[in-house]
Each structure stands twice: as structure tokens, then as C-alpha cells.
């Protein structure tokens, strides 16, 4: 005879408000193999867990059902509790009477109570068929892959490398640095972006644990947490970087120019170019779209001038295979393209630029050497209009969300404008000014006070060219006035959007994205830096718009999560996986085809299918697909599942039907 | 110098009556004199004082608005007594001048040369209510109470000038002041809790914009009524006359006392003939509580 214990949680009034928990506990206690049944206000609390542990110990229980919330919430909690009393954790089961009962049947206490009772009875039926299982120990590759070489990827890489783990840092641009490399001074302390990034880049270069792979992209990812097999594509640079000394002659002599992405179109770059302009050590790549040699073979100037003979027009791409235990996705952001915003000139008014372009103007390493000049005629602007929430907070036409950084960078840019051009006047059109982090509000008010910024509450309706100036039609809703002014320049704080290609990379990683393309976290509060796919961690703006402070904090959090993963000798995994009855399996191979985790493989010698327990996630696809019922899931065997259904059917004939 | 109230030797204050004490606020002046005499405090009216200038002057001419009170400060400096000002409006103007003299050296030079005096920073300028509550103190006031104002429900009205701007007046909490309330309790009256203690009554616009000043006054008096008060008590000549003359809240209306009038009743002083000066007669109210 079993000695089962049942513990019914009130969850405050979440369950007890709808289910008669006392009656349920009493009735369940009358079942023959239930030797203990009780209820408590919060079973997951310390005293609640103590009730369970005491009962296990004192009554010698050999199985436990906790009737409470979803197993995704506290299954682990209760399994640890029974384990601490020497009971096998896999004979502790959860009966979900909250999400699947009390929450959906509010106002019908009688039937909700009956349903709760039947749910518990069916879980008891499952428990009767449970086996004692041992946790699986899987080998673990203690090496991490970081995708994206911005401040998020850099931070995660350094944190991991410093704790002794190997890191592969993949960056699709010719050099690391990301968006931070484009910025001038950063809010709220006006630190130079280069002073933040420079030392970090040096650390990356000098850390033997970090392998930087610039100009590379992740092509394919197989496997699972602990053992991912990653294929990385090295794009052809057309330059032999081992020979190249970054002397820069080729950049000088190349005759082809096109608009520079890095400089946000404020200036041009050559067809052979380096990533971040600030770095002397940047080795060049050839842009195959613009290079005359690669397009039609009409030019070989770079090859002719290169003193090292490093130019390789025939270089092909290279594929590399790596095994890693965890992956950080730090793919960063783009700005919403101005070209899509008609009322602000479709990006065709030269003196209307976006926030990143203005950063380049402010930057001493930028195309104007840090001078603010109008792109149209190079004149120094006096009246500059900043428009916030451009394509952000615009659910019908663009993005519904707040981009979080624009309020602060606009205030900073206006302040720097005033400092560089003292007789200038910044006007800032805003909907709200959000300064929700440490020191931000003080920065904003300080800037307003010292620099006499004028903030106007209202969304600018229209921006158009009039003569050599830019006419702005705005509004000041606080004084109920329509405001018209002629600006010398307009800066648009366009929305932060996920960087291009995020959906492809997410699909390769089996990670999920929201409808805007931002990577989704497993739980916004409980698991904010984890993807729902185990072993994938999220840092930076790929997960959602955020500032440098939050990005760095998040990146360190991913590193810390991976450190705790890697600190184990082996990867412990629930043994609730598929198994095969070799007597029944016909070796048809259907399971191999349906398995989404590549956990099924044919055993060629025995002619039957086998399970890689390390890869199996217990999803059940193979079990459903197996034509012979040769596949089963541990502790969810067919006999158990049918038993649960029969129990429900009995209940339905009885009390459930009465109501 | 004219001593208008005389008490024990040593307890003397210099006194700026203000123009209204001889006209529209004559009952304030009379009751101050009687009450302070009973408390043994001497007031010495400052020599040949002049009008503080009030809102009219500071609205039109900043320098003049500082020089007129400065001339009074110059006169008051001749004694080494603290200067007491009964009217909240005058008090505010004197304190504004004091602030300018203390914090703006350039303005100080200009005012000093225009008026022809040298400012002495140690001259202390106090509102009468401050002097009564913090100088004389509740202990001595309670000792003098012969006829407690039991059953009298008052709404204490501080108005603007006594408490605002706090950097100028440096007196009590500008949103919920307590001096008058505590004083009323010590006289045995019940000070009602209400929310319009410091709302402006618009007195400065009473003559030019009577229509909307009536609305401001009615709201104040109406709120006092709603809080259960049967009368208001104040410390400003302009507020008192505005509140009594512009209210339109019912048959009889709520009388508005100067706090010194109620002190006089509580002290059982004889010859409190100033009642007849009120625009809204308090006789019925006082009779109903046997306070007359």
C-alpha cells in the first residue's frame, strides 16, 4: 500500500477564494492510499514547505502531491523540499488547481471545488505509476559563444574570460565596438564613449581566453544547453589579415567612394575600409558591392599599392565548427529609418538628421572633427530643433513602445550643442520626458538650467524645407499654442529597433522574438536574461531598448548565469525523457524525423531507434508519432496518462456532472 | 514717541500700526491696545511712520516699494526694540524690504542712499501674532483667560501675506499654519479643521473686480461654514474688511474677528465697544454663547 501525502495550497485567496480547500483536503484524505492530507495558506513559504517535510519524515510518505499553482512556478521548489527528507524528487507531483481551476472558474465555487478534487485524484493516479528516477548528468562544454561585439558582448566576454572560461566573440562588422563606438559623450556624467570602450577593447585584445572573430556570422546552431554545435561563417575580407599591417595606403588610394554607414551618411568611405575609424589597428575589408575589381574587374589599385601583397580578390568564405556550452545573444540595435517618415521629409532634407548622425558630428573622431555643421552647406547652425519619440510610441504607424534612451540623449545633445555653439538655441519637442534612472532627472534639470534649453510639449506635425532653413510646425500643448519656427537643423530621435537580421539569428538559435523582433526572455521578472531556450542568454538592445548602464548590467548578469552553469562538473538534467522498448520498436525511423532536438538516432547495429538523453527535452513528439507505441516518456507512460483520463471520466460521471 | 499700551517695565516693543488701524481696521487697533495692556506689554509707536506702500507700490515701482518701508525701518532702528507689525500686509512689505536689504547689496546701497539711513541688520521685525504666540507665550495668555470662549467654533484664516512667500515671512507653515489655531484653543474656543486657511481672498482687486472677488470670498467663507465654523478669525486689515464686505453666504453671514478682539473677550476686558464697528454684527453669535 502506498503512503501518499497531499498538500492543498490556498495561495492566499487565489485558490481558496474559489475552491473549498478544506473540503478538498478532507475528501482526498479519505482515499485509501493517502495517509496524509492537509491545507495551508501558502504552501511555497518556509512554514508551508516545513509542513511537507515534517509529514514526509514523520509519516514515512513515499509519494507527494502538492495541489497548487502551475508546475512551472514551484515544481522545483517542492521537489527540493521532499529531497531534503530523503525522498526521490520524481515522486513529488504538482496538481495545478490554480491556473487550470480556480482562476478560470471564479464565481462557481461548487464546481471548481469538484474539479480541483478530480485534478488531484488524477495526479494521484499518475503518481501510482511513477518510478524512482535518477537525475541525468551530462557532459558540459565550458566554453561560451558571444554573438555581437558591442558593449554588451564585450562585457559578457570579459566577465566570462576573467573567470577562466573560453569565449568566442563573433562580430559581423570588420571590428568590434558596436554602437558605442559611434557615440560622443555619454549621459549622465558625460564620459567620453571612447574612455568606456577603449580599455575594454584593450582587455579583449589581451585576454588569452577570448577569441575575437570579426567579420563573421553564425550560420547554424545544433545541440542543446551544455553542448551546442555552432557553425560560423567567416565572410571574405579580400585582405590577408595575417600579412596586412594596417598601414592605410589602400584606403588612401582606392578610387571608389560610397556613403559611410558608420558615419551615418555624413561622409563617404572607400570600397576598401575599416570598421571603427577610431582604431588604428583596424584591418580593412573590401566591400564587394562597390569594389570595381569585384564588380567588373576594372581596377586593381589596392593590390598594386599594398606593400605587403595582402590583397586577395579570390578569397572565399570560410566555415568553422565550434562546440560551446552556452550562448550570449548581444546583437544590438538600429535606428528606425528616417526614410520611412514622410512628415519629417522622408530622409531627403539634408539638414534633418537622426540622433546617431548628430553623435557623429559631436564626436572628435567624426567627419566634422567634432564641429557641429549643417550637412547641406557646412554652416554652423544656431537654432536646432530636436524631436523626441520619432516612430516610438506611435502604435498605429510605427512602434508602440518607448525607446528609453532618446529623452536622455536628446537632453545631452542639446546641452553639448549649447556648449559648442554658445549663441545657439536648442528647442526640444517632447511628449513626456522620461528620466527614470539614477542621476538622470538631475542631469536633465541641470542642462535646462545651465543651457536654457526650451522644452515644448507636443509632437511636431510637419518638417519641411523653406529656403535654406527647415520649417517646423509644432505645438506647445502646455500653453495651448501652435508654434512655428525656422530651424537651421533638425535632429530626430528615431526609435530603437532590433538590428537587421535578428529574426534569422533567432530562428537559428531556436530563440523567440516578439512582434517587433526583440528577443523574448523566459520570464520578465524571474528569468529576465534567459531565453526560453535553455542555454541561450540575452544582453543589450537586442532584448529591448536600453541604455549603456542597463546593457552592461544585463551583460554581466548573463555572464554570471553562465558562470554558475559552468561551475558544475556535469550538466544535471531532469530524467523525464523518452525511452524505447527494444522489444516493440520496428526501426521505422519516424521518431528520428519528428524529433525537433535531434535527440533520436537509429542504432544501425540493432536496427532500432535510440534516445540521446542529453538532448531529449521530453516534448513527446516521438511518442505521439510512434506507430507501435514503442516510445514512452518516463513518469508519463501511456498507462499513467490513460489512468489519469479514466479518473477524470469517472469524476465527470459523478460529481462534476451534477453541477 | 508715543506709548500706546503700557505694562511692566522692560517688556516693550516698537510698534508699526499701519494706515488701516486708524480707519477700516480701527477695531484691530483698539483691541490690540487693550489686550496688550492687560498682558503687561508696552508698545511704542514708531516715530512719524509712513504707509508701507502695499500692493499698489510694489506693482508699480520696485525701488519705491522698498524705500517706503525702509523709512519705517530707519525710524524703528532708533530704538533697540523689536518691531511689531499687526497687519499681515504691512508685515509682508517690511519683510520684503528686510530681505532685499539683507540679500541684495546693490539694492541695499540704493535704498540706503535714497532714504538716507544706514541699515542695521539686527533689527527684528515680527508679526503681532508671532509676538503674542512666541514672545508672550500661551502660559501667560491662559492665565489671563477669565471667560473661556467655550463653544465658539472659529475658522482661523491666515491669508497670503502672513505666511507667503515663506522665504520672506519666515513664519509658520505656508500650507497649514497653526499659530492662530493654537491661540484659539488656549482661549477655550474650538478651532475647526479646514482647508482654506491660506487661500487668497483677492482683497487687492476688491475695488476693481468686485465680481470675481465675491467668488473668492464666498468660497473661503463657504468652506469655513461647511467645516462648522460660526465665525472667522484673522490678523490682517485688508482680509477682514474684504471677507466681511464681499461675502454673500446667507442671511446673517459669518462675522470676521481680529484675533485680538477674541483675546479681549476671553480676558473679560471692559469697554469692548469695538463690536459696533463690524460690518457683520457678531452680537447674535456672542449672545448665544453668553460672551458679551
Amino acid at each position, binding site marked *: 500500500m502506498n503512503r501518499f501525502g497531499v498538500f492543498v495550497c490556498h495561495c492566499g485567496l487565489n485558490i481558496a477564494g474559489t475552491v473549498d480547500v478544506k473540503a478538498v483536503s478532507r475528501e482526498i484524505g479519505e482515499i485509501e492510499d493517502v495517509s496524509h492530507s492537509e491545507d495551508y495558506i501558502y504552501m511555497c513559504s518556509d512554514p508551508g514547505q516545513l509542513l511537507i517535510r515534517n509529514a514526509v519524515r514523520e509519516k514515512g510518505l513515499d509519494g507527494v502531491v502538492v495541489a497548487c499553482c502551475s508546475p512551472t512556478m514551484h515544481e522545483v521548489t517542492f521537489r527540493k523540499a521532499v529531497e531534503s527528507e530523503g525522498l526521490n524528487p520524481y515522486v513529488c507531483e504538482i496538481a495545478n488547481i490554480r491556473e487550470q481551476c480556480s482562476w478560470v472558474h471564479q464565481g462557481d465555487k461548487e464546481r471548481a471545488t469538484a474539479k480541483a478534487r478530480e485534478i488531484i485524484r488524477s495526479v494521484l493516479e499518475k503518481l501510482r505509476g511513477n518510478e524512482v528516477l535518477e537525475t541525468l548528468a551530462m557532459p558540459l562544454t565550458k566554453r561560451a559563444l558571444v554573438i555581437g561585439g558591442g558593449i554588451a558582448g564585450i562585457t559578457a566576454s570579459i566577465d566570462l574570460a576573467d573567470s577562466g572560461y573560453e569565449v568566442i566573440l563573433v562580430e559581423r562588422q570588420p571590428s568590434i565596438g558596436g554602437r558605442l563606438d559611434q557615440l560622443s559623450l555619454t549621459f549622465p556624467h558625460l564620459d567620453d564613449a571612447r574612455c568606456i570602450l577603449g580599455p575594454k577593447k584593450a582587455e579583449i585584445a589581451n585576454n588569452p581566453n577570448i577569441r575575437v572573430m570579426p567579420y563573421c556570422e553564425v550560420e547554424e546552431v545544433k545541440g542543446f544547453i551544455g553542448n551546442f554545435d555552432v557553425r560560423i561563417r567567416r565572410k571574405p575580407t579580400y585582405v590577408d589579415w595575417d600579412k596586412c599591417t594596417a598601414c592605410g595606403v589602400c584606403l588612401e588610394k582606392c578610387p571608389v567612394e560610397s556613403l559611410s554607414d558608420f558615419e551615418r551618411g555624413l561622409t563617404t568611405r572607400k570600397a576598401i575600409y575599416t570598421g571603427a575609424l577610431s582604431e588604428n589597428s583596424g584591418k580593412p575589408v573590401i566591400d564587394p558591392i562597390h569594389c570595381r575589381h569585384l564588380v567588373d574587374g576594372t581596377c586593381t589599385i589596392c593590390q598594386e599599392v599594398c606593400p605587403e601583397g595582402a590583397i586577395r580578390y579570390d578569397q572565399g568564405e570560410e566555415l568553422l565548427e565550434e562546440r560551446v556550452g552556452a550562448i550570449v545573444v548581444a546583437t544590438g540595435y538600429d535606428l528606425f529609418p528616417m526614410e520611412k517618415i514622410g512628415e519629417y521629409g522622408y530622409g531627403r532634407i539634408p539638414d534633418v538628421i537622426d540622433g546617431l548622425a548628430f553623435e557623429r558630428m559631436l564626436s572628435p573622431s567624426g567627419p566634422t572633427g567634432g564641429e557641429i555643421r549643417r550637412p547641406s552647406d557646412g554652416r554652423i547652425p*544656431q*537654432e536646432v530643433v530636436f524631436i523626441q519619440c520619432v516612430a516610438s510610441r506611435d502604435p498605429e504607424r510605427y512602434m508602440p513602445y518607448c525607446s528609453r534612451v532618446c529623452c536622455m540623449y536628446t537632453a545631452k545633445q542639446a546641452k553639448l550643442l549649447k556648449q559648442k555653439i554658445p549663441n545657439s*538655441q536648442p528647442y526640444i519637442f517632447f511628449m513626456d520626458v522620461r528620466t527614470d534612472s539614477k542621476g538622470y532627472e538631475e542631469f536633465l*534639470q541641470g542642462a*535646462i*538650467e545651465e543651457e*536654457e*534649453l*526650451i*522644452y515644448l*510639449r507636443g509632437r511636431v506635425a510637419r518638417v519641411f524645407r523653406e529656403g535654406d532653413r527647415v520649417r517646423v510646425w509644432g505645438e*506647445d500643448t*502646455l*500653453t*495651448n*499654442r*501652435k*508654434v*512655428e519656427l525656422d530651424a537651421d537643423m533638425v535632429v530626430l530621435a528615431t526609435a530603437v529597433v532590433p538590428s537587421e537580421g535578428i529574426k534569422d539569428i533567432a530562428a537559428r538559435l531556436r530563440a523567440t522574438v516578439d512582434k517587433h523582433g526583440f528577443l523574448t526572455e523566459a520570464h520578465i521578472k524571474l528569468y529576465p536574461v534567459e531565453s526560453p531556450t535553455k542555454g541561450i542568454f540575452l544582453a543589450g538592445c537586442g532584448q529591448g531598448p536600453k541604455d549603456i548602464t542597463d546593457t552592461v548590467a544585463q551583460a554581466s548578469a548573463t555572464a554570471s548565469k553562465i558562470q554558475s552553469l559552468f561551475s558544475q562538473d556535469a550538466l544535471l538534467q531532469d530524467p523525464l525523457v523518452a525511452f524505447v522498448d527494444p522489444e516493440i520498436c520496428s526501426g521505422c525511423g519516424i521518431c528520428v524525423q519528428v524529433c525537433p532536438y535531434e535527440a533520436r538516432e537509429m542504432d544501425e547495429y540493432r536496427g532500432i531507434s535510440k534516445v540521446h538523453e542529453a538532448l531529449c527535452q521530453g516534448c513527446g513528439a516521438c511518442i505521439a508519432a510512434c506507430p507501435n507505441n514503442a516510445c514512452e516518456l518516463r513518469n508519463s507512460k501511456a498507462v499513467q496518462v490513460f489512468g489519469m483520463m479514466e479518473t477524470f471520466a469517472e469524476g465527470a460521471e459523478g460529481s462534476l456532472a451534477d453541477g | 514717541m508715543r506709548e500706546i499700551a503700557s505694562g511692566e517695565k522692560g517688556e516693550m516693543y516698537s510698534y508699526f500700526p499701519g*494706515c488701516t488701524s*486708524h*480707519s477700516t481696521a*480701527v477695531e484691530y487697533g483698539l483691541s490690540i491696545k487693550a489686550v496688550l495692556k492687560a498682558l503687561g506689554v508696552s508698545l511704542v509707536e514708531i516715530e*512719524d*511712520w*509712513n*504707509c508701507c*506702500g*502695499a*500692493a*499698489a*507700490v*510694489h*506693482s*508699480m*515701482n*520696485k*525701488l*519705491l516699494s522698498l*524705500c*517706503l518701508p525702509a*523709512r519705517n525701518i530707519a525710524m524703528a532702528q532708533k530704538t533697540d526694540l523689536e518691531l511689531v507689525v499687526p497687519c499681515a500686509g504691512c508685515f509682508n512689505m517690511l519683510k520684503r524690504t528686510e530681505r532685499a536689504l539683507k540679500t541684495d547689496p546693490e539694492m541695499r546701497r540704493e535704498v540706503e542712499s*535714497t*532714504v538716507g539711513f544706514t541699515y542695521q541688520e539686527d533689527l527684528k521685525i515680527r508679526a503681532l501674532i508671532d509676538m503674542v504666540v512666541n514672545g508672550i507665550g500661551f502660559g501667560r495668555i491662559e492665565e489671563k483667560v477669565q471667560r473661556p470662549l467655550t463653544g465658539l467654533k472659529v475658522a482661523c484664516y491666515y491669508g*497670503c501675506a502672513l505666511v*507667503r*512667500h*515663506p522665504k520672506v515671512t519666515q513664519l509658520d507653515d505656508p500650507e497649514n499654519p497653526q499659530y492662530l489655531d493654537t491661540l484659539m484653543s488656549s482661549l477655550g474656543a474650538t478651532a475647526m479643521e479646514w482647508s482654506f486657511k491660506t487661500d*487668497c481672498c*483677492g*482683497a*487687492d*482687486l476688491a*475695488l*476693481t473686480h468686485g465680481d*470675481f472677488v465675491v467668488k*473668492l470670498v464666498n468660497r473661503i467663507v463657504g468652506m469655513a461654514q461647511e467645516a462648522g465654523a460660526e465665525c472667522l478669525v484673522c490678523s490682517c486689515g485688508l482680509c477682514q474688511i474684504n471677507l466681511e*464686505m464681499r461675502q454673500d453666504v446667507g442671511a446673517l453671514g459669518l462675522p470676521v474677528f481680529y484675533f485680538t478682539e477674541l483675546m479681549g473677550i476671553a480676558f473679560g476686558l471692559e469697554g469692548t465697544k469695538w463690536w459696533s*464697528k463690524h*460690518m457683520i454684527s457678531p452680537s447674535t453669535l456672542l449672545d448665544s454663547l453668553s460672551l458679551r
Partner: protein
Amino acid sequence: MDKPMTTVELPDIEGRQTFLAEVQERCGENLGLCYQCLKCTVGCPTAPYMDFNPNTIVRLIQFGLKREVLESNAIWLCVSCETCGTRCPNEIDIGLLMDALREMSLEEGYRAKEKGVVALHNAFMESIRRGGRVHEATMLMEYKLRSGDYWTDLIPGMKLFMKGKIPLLPGRIKGIDSIREIYKKTQKQRKVLEDREGKSK
């Protein structure tokens, strides 16, 4: 918002900055700090009667709209109750600002929308100049003459008179000469200002 929306075209940057600087210099307040929270306007007893709310006045100054500000009725309806200044989260004393605006409006000869208020203030100032203290009866008479409004408040005025609260004969302080000297000096100072304005024009 009971006031209709109007369009404003901002004046050139020099004009705007000059007006802002002059106002700030006069009142000593830093108007750049205003973040338009409207606490001043909502608490103001006379804002419902103003053409521009107090917060709007601050904004118009930032816009450099000198004429609109100095010709507004708002500057004359402010009663200097200081509710705004006491509550302002940025410590802007709008009472002092309004004083400065009234003075500028007079000095530069702008048309005052509230003639009655100006007439009363003038009558009040004259009364002090004559006797050193305010004499209600003559002051009110002068106000009536200046404003042309003879009938308003005649009955309450009579009641006050009957109560003996309005003395009939004006007095005169001993040092009346010093008062007149102060008037003269402060007036002269205004003249200087006017001259300076004249030269710069």
C-alpha cells in the same frame, strides 16, 4: 483649456534672448527652470480671469513675445498672493516676475489692459505722496475720477463711512518732505531708465 489655440511665430533669436535676459535680470528669477508643470496656474486665485495663465506668461517670455506679455491683463490681475512662488518646484517666484513685468510695461509705455487696476494703484501712490499715509476718502475719490467708475461700491463705501471707518479729513505726517524726496528720487531713477531705452532705440 478655455482659451482658444493661437499660432505663434517665434521672433528672431536675438529679440527673444534680449527680452528673456532683461526680465530675468529685473526679477532675479531663473525662468529656464520652468518645466511647465502648471502648479502655479492651478493654484492661482485669479488665473481663471487672466488672458494668459501664469505658466503661459513664463513660456511667452521664453518665446520672446514681449508685446503679448506686457500688454496682457494677466500681469495686472496677479494679486501677489505668492501661492505660486511658495509651491513652485523650481523656486521660481512668479509674484516677483509679475512685479517686474508690470514695471516694464509702465516704463515702456505699453497699453495696460486693466486700466482700473492701474488707476487704483496710481491713486494709492498719490495718496501716500500727499500725506505719507493712505487716506481712504481722498484716495477713493481720486480713483473714481481716474477710472471714471463712479457708482460701483458706493453703498458699501457709505456703510463704512457711517461706521466711522473712513476718516473725513486727510492727515499728513511730519516728515512728509522726506516722503516726497523718496518719490522724487525713485521717479528720477525711472527717468534714467527711460532715457536709456530711448537711446538704444
